């Protein structure tokens, strides 16, 4: 590595750090992201300049990759953001696996330290890549979001892991004659990535995607150890750390431990006793009647969930909120940290619809004022408003901080059917005496309410 290249890498690493720091503050985040892209450009240029060989192939690869990435980023709908991030995690981690493989292929003789780095890059990168694909399939509901369980699941996964460790030991000790071991490890970790995510329910995907995000960074750092490049190590470590912090925040918002998320098959069984303590019948309401209640309301809280994303109802919701405010009603949006399918999912959708940041409140701030709320409108959210999380110690959700919409004077629940939520847990909120159900597509329902307001005004 030339001195000039080293200097370029140091500058790149510094800009990455500054960019990341700016990304954690709303007013500087966009600049921070752009700075980070500049850092990436510097690192890539410095590498290109000194690589020299096969430049036409490398540039070709960059052009193809950039075209695909740009196409995906420009075309993606904001509601599909979790799926895209899952897929991007997959491509990045698979790239780290290939780098490790190619570097080993080039030399075949590697020092033990490098050998360990190869194994780590291949294992983390390989698992994260297929795990991302399964997460993508679950998020886009191409396969069931329900946990997929089969007998001896833990035992099978543990056996594969032990096999990987044994092969890794062989590989590190006899690197020159162990090409076969590396290939076996690659195959095993790809399978293991699939098996690890299958038993995790769709509602836990925000945690899984955060964890994969962290892994992708660690795989890049491991690749950095193989080629002795500090900029990979610094950038990879930063991503690994930030992904872990996000994972931790998500676990806290669900009051669950990471081990519980990964290994419990949460939501596979319908909560026992949930069906037995039948409190009453759900009470449907027409949009005309709902309009009268809203028209008279002084204080409204909207609780969006994944259903709002599915129905792409965010713009309609914003229109309704504007009409309510014109009518003198105070409107707030209560955002649960794990609402939706990735961290901050609802914030992105509401920002797209131009909802003011000041109108967004967190559960801890809105709950104490819930008694004075006239109408709480739950749009496609379910588990984050389930009162069992507070009251029923036998519920799988018990202990998870929720938004106490059941304490509002009236609750409207917009829902497609009486099906339980992603976690598969019954929700007694739907049959509470102060709850009214508005069945149907969330967007159509909101637009009907908007229509009522407009008819009344004209």
């Amino acid at each position: 590595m030339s001195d000039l290249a080293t200097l370029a890498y140091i500058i790149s690493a510094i800009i990455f750090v500054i960019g990341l720091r700016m990304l954690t503050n709303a007013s500087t985040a966009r600049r921070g992201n752009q700075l980070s892209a500049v850092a990436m450009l510097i690192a890539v240029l410095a590498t290109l300049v000194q690589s020299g060989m096969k430049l036409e192939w490398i540039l070709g690869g960059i052009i193809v990759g950039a075209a695909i990435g740009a196409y995906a980023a420009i075309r993606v709908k904001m509601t599909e953001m979790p799926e895209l991030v899952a897929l991007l995690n997959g491509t990045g981690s698979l790239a780290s696996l290939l780098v490790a493989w190619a570097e080993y292929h080039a030399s075949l003789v590697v020092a033990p330290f490098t050998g360990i780095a190869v194994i780590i890059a291949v294992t983390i990168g390989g698992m994260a890549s297929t795990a991302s694909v399964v997460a993508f399939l679950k998020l886009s509901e191409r396969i069931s979001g329900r946990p997929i369980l089969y007998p001896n699941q833990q035992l099978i996964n543990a056996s594969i892991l032990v096999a990987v460790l044994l092969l890794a030991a062989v590989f590190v000790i006899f690197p020159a004659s162990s090409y076969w071991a590396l290939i076996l490890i690659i195959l095993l970790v790809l399978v293991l990535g699939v098996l690890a995510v299958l038993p995790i329910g769709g509602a836990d995907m925000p945690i899984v995607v955060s964890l994969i995000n962290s892994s992708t960074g660690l795989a890049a750092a491991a690749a950095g150890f193989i080629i002795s490049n500090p900029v990979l190590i610094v950038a990879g470590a930063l991503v690994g750390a930030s992904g872990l912090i996000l994972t931790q925040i998500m676990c806290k918002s669900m009051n669950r431990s990471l081990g519980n998320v990964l290994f419990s098959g949460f939501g596979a069984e319908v909560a026992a006793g949930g069906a037995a303590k039948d409190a009453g019948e759900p009470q449907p309401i027409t949009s005309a009647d709902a309009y009268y209640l809203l028209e008279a309301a002084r204080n409204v809280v909207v609780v969006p969930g994944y259903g709002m994303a599915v129905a792409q109802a965010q713009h309609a919701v914003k229109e309704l909120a504007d009409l309510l405010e014109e009518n003198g009603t105070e409107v707030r949006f209560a955002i649960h940290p794990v609402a939706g399918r990735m961290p901050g999912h609802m914030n992105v959708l509401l920002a797209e619809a131009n909802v003011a940041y000041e109108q967004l409140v967190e559960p801890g701030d809105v709950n104490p004022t819930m008694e004075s709320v006239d109408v709480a409108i739950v749009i496609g959210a379910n588990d984050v408003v389930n009162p069992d999380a507070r009251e029923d110690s036998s519920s799988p959700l018990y202990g998870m901080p929720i938004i106490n919409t059941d304490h509002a004077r009236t609750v409207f629940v917009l829902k497609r059917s009486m099906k339980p939520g992603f976690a598969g847990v019954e929700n007694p909120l739907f049959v509470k005496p102060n709850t009214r159900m508005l069945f149907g597509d969330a967007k159509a329902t909101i637009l009907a309410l908007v229509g009522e307001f407009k008819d009344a005004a004209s």
Partner: protein
Amino acid sequence: MLLLFVFVLAAFLGFELINKIPSQLHTPLMSGTNAISGITVVGAIAAAAAGGTFGTVLGVLAVVLATINVVGGYLVTDRMLEMFGSKKERK
């Protein structure tokens, strides 16, 4: 071993940097750091340049995948943050 030292310090720096994040920024932070993890493209370029035919195939494939990650990640993060920003200008 010196590299391990770099790794530990950088990870520590990461934890310190990202301690408090407003929940509004969770998604952009995730997709932004996701783009950063595409830094593996640097390793991919090195691998593509160094190896024989098969090594180059692996390397170029890694370049394509990592570049998708980099370009897709940065662009989509920018798109999101632009939405957050435009809202402020309006006021």
